[in-house]
């Protein structure tokens, strides 16, 4: 019997590992690394959920980033992402395995999938978290470092083991820590590139437990049809890995094209850098959203 309000019946941390074209994305590894810490704080196990067509071979990587167990669901219908198929499979696995925490990368796909799953599972979902805590003491350390709150003058429940999910709101002007006290699993999508990836552990990769789960997914479950998947030939803006970023802001309003050209030229001169942009510049339509940096855009760690 599955009851989303029966908190005690849920345990374990689960990470949805997004695999596209036979490759697990880096965000999933970041989530696994973070999930490991959360699971340790809870004294519970960390599992990865891997779904797709012929993806079992990737399970070892999930172990290498900290998972104790990998659930694998394979079906020809899972080859390309569809909201309907993935939502069904994830929800079915959650019904069966009852994890207390479910993390999903806040990629374009994760942000399509997460809310749909949360609605089906009748639980809360925090969008785009940038920081996660179980242990209240660690959360307070985080607040001391990243807020102006006078932490020590306030009362805190130090025994609380609920997931505290912190995210930017109002365009990054405000940070909010969200909790989901009455329902399980506690779900969050997590911003790519924010959490640090752990070292790959070959021993763990070799020893990870793989459990294959069956699915009764059928064609009738799929309400949308993917006609094609196209990789854009356009230059992918790799802000996350960039060493040099020349960022533009509202100041280019007078002549956006020239401003961006100038920034690209400078980035080039400084050693093949990338053009970043402020939210204001993106909102004003000067440049596409994949260039955006900062609280609401990508978290970057450039050299310059």
């Amino acid at each position, binding site marked *: 019997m599955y009851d989303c309000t029966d908190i005690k019946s849920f345990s374990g941390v689960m990470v949805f590992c997004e695999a596209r074209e036979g490759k697990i994305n880096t965000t999933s590894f970041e989530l696994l690394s973070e999930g490991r810490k959360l699971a340790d704080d809870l004294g519970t196990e960390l599992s990865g959920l891997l779904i797709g067509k012929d993806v079992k071979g990737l399970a070892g990587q999930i172990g290498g980033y900290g998972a104790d167990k990998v659930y694998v669901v394979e079906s020809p219908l899972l080859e390309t992402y569809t909201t309907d198929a993935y939502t069904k499979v994830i929800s079915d696995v959650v019904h069966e395995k009852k994890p207390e925490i479910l993390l999903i990368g806040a990629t*374009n796909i994760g942000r399509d999938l997460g809310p749909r799953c949360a609605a089906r599972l009748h639980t*809360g979902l925090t969008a785009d978290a940038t920081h996660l805590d179980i242990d209240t003491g660690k959360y307070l350390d985080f607040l001391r470092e*990243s807020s102006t709150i006078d932490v020590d003058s306030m009362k805190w429940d130090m025994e609380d083991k609920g997931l505290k999910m912190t995210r*930017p709101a*109002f365009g990054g002007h*405000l940070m909010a820590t969200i909790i989901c006290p009455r329902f399980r699993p506690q779900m969050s999508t997590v911003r790519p590139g924010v959490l640090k990836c752990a070292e790959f552990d070959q021993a763990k990769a070799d020893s990870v437990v793989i459990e294959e789960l069956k699915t009764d997914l059928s064609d009738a479950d799929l309400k949308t049809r*993917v006609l094609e998947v196209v990789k854009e030939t356009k230059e992918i803006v790799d802000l996350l890995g960039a060493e040099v970023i020349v960022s533009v802001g509202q100041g280019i309003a007078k002549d956006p094209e020239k401003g961006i050209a100038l920034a690209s030229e400078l980035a080039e001169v400084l050693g093949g850098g990338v053009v970043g942009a402020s939210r204001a510049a993106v*909102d004003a339509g000067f440049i596409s*959203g994949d260039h955006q940096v900062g609280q609401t855009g990508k978290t970057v760690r450039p050299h310059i």
Partner: protein
Amino acid sequence: MKYIVCVKQVPDTQGKVAVKEDGTMDRSKMAAIINPDDLNAVEAALTLKDSNPDAKVVVVTMGPPPAAGMLHELLAMGADEAVLVSGREFGGSDTFATSQILAGAISHIGIEADDVIFCGRQAIDGDTAQVGPQIAEKLGIPQISYAADIEQNGNTLKVKRVLEDGYMTIEADTPCLITCIKELNKPRYMTVSGILEFDKKPYSVFDYETLKDEPLIEADTIGLKGSPTNVYKSFSPPQKAPGRMIAANESGVKELAQELAAKHII
């Protein structure tokens, strides 16, 4: 045929952002605007209506009574009908409860086989991108998010759905829900006649009484009580040390280059 568009009034985070002492946003001090992505959703519906003149565009919002002003604006842009979902019982809703209420309101309007529901991808106050997909789930209809191009052929929609490194072309039958991004279109302006005659168009307010018999609307699925998530703490991020401005002239450039070189960055 109906195009139902869900819209939200949001504080303009581009301007000055006012934060109260308790760390929450002081909405009363900020200008209210129509959420930018939602304007793209409205434009998407109006564009489809341009080639299906018999279709009706219905805009729906949940919010306090002043949100009426935004609905008037959308009627002046060309929407045919507006619905304001407003009531004390709905206050304090998180995305789950909000989508529950909006799905209830849409059911109350009634979904027909050839209807399409549009949402903006996300609102600039919360940036969650959750309400659209959750409405679709609660209505039991397919969703296509991040739409950058929409084509309608009878009861079939073909949508270009944006990914980080490209796009997918997805087809779905109506009724279905689409969330729209900025790249989809350029929203039109209101028109002079639209402004002069918005008050002649149907306008309704759905309060709790109106919706209470909808199966989706239960005391424990809406409002603060029906919200699975709570805000545990909110705070302002610390101010970063201010950057240093270097003059935009030749000596400034030299200064910058010297400094970067001194730090072995270049």
